């Protein structure tokens, strides 16, 4: 365990010392950061979360002790999960129950024309589902369903209006070069997609 003492320091010195401590710690070694400045405490937590470094927090009066867990099999700590959901406008997964994962433009295989027709029909029907799915995640060729000329676009928009979060895989968008042709949906990275799928109660894969 390595200890970084930032007591008495003000922004951004505690963050710099945290960064240094993480750099200097040997692989797998936990790093404990002592912070007594509330702004720095909040910024250090934010920094760790953004850089996907799991940590736990212990508060003793005005002193906060943040421990960065660098062991191999660490789960996201309770504190970090809380942090993710309370960051009021974080475009984080607002997953309640059902998530739809769409990996193709077509439903099923066999006949492409039929497959397209079925997928459009799937979305038309999905709009009627009550409550609406928490999120639809589009990846691989599935992202093309959200393009401006897609026959399913209107239904996807209706879903979005009903409160369903629409996530589009950025890597896939870049791969197909269709960034300018997506009128709806949020760009999403694999970290976010994995979290959405993990937090789902049901996953529908048409």
């Amino acid at each position: 365990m390595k200890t970084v003492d930032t007591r008495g320091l003000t922004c951004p010195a505690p963050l710099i010392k945290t960064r240094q401590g993480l750099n200097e710690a040997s692989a797998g070694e936990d790093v404990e950061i002592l912070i007594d400045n509330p702004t720095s405490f909040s910024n250090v937590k934010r920094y760790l979360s953004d850089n996907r470094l799991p940590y736990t927090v212990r508060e003793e009066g005005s002193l906060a002790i943040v421990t960065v867990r660098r062991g191999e099999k660490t789960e996201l700590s309770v504190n970090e999960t809380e942090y993710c959901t309370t960051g009021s406008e974080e475009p984080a997964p607002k997953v309640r129950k059902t998530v739809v994962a769409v990996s193709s433009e077509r439903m099923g295989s066999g006949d492409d024309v039929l497959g397209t027709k079925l997928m459009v029909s799937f979305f038309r029907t999905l709009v009627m589902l009550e409550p609406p799915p928490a999120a639809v995640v589009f990846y691989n060729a599935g992202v093309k369903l959200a393009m401006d000329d897609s026959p399913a676009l209107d239904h996807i928009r209706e879903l979005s209006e009903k409160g369903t979060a629409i996530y589009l895989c950025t890597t896939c968008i870049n791969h197909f070069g269709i960034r300018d042709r997506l009128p709806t949906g949020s760009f999403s990275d694999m970290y976010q997609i994995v979290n959405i799928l993990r937090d789902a109660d049901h996953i529908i894969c048409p």
Partner: protein
Amino acid sequence: MSFDLLTTVETGGCSAKIPPRQLEELLKDLHLPADPRILVDISTHDDAGVYKINDETALVLTTDFFPPLVSDGYDFGLIAATNSISDIYAMGATPLVALNIMMFPSSRIPMEVYREILRGGNDKAQEAGVSIIGGHTIDDYPPKYGLAVIGTVHPDRVITNAGVREGDELVLTKPVGTGIILAGHRLKMTTPGQLAAAVLTMKQLNNRGAELMARHSIRGATDITGFGLAGHALKMARASGVTIELYMKNVPLLDGTYSLAEQGCIPGAAFRNLDYTEGETLLADGLDYTLKMIAHDAQTSGGLLMAVAPERSDKMLRDLHSSGHPEAAVIGKAVRRREASLILA
């Protein structure tokens, strides 16, 4: 004179602003006067208010003041005045007259420092063709200084946050990183050259950029200050009903900015700005964390961010490069409105 103004403050310059989200919350219930002569008010979060006098002339009014961000009084005065006048330029207007706004602890700091700050403000105003015709001082600690400036513009040629059109390219005139460099300086992590370059850019008027905006018929622009590049771009995107994409790798940076930010030298204001933008911002896959935080670094007396039609951007860049802005660059573009107002790539 050897009094170090930096001993009076923890955060100076535009880093001392109230968090943007909190400010919006405070202002949202404020009654906005409905007068047709008011061409621009706070509803679009513009740099200055614009009031139409007649068909030929509109008044542009702005004020800005902040605590010290450098040690030397004269430099502080120069930077504060440059920053205050910048809002007039960002609106496409010509600054005319100004008033000094000063808070100064007469019993705690030598009055010589007061004179030096005013001298800096006066010299910069003179360079901009602005006459300082009055002012107001309050005894207060730590000191704060700035100007209230009045300029004029033709009512049809006002440049605002709302004037960005789909397809426009976004040109930034000055390098970014003043917040990070100044924080690094206080922790003795910068070289004298890095600090000097940051001070120099903060002392540079945006007058040349404003002249070029007029020549190229620009309608949408802002100056980059306390809300950082991302915060100001977001305000533009919202006001204009477009989505703005910023290519962070194209953004000119002050020397030292990247390595300081990478070492964790990220001022608190950048986190406040991040809080403000993130609900409406998408981060492209693989966007470097350090560049993301640099996009949110609060700038003092930053450059102009202007929306230029793509067929004119080459000429605009050439003109900027030959008028004292060698680092001006295209750093983004406006695209059709998506759910998110801002995309950082």
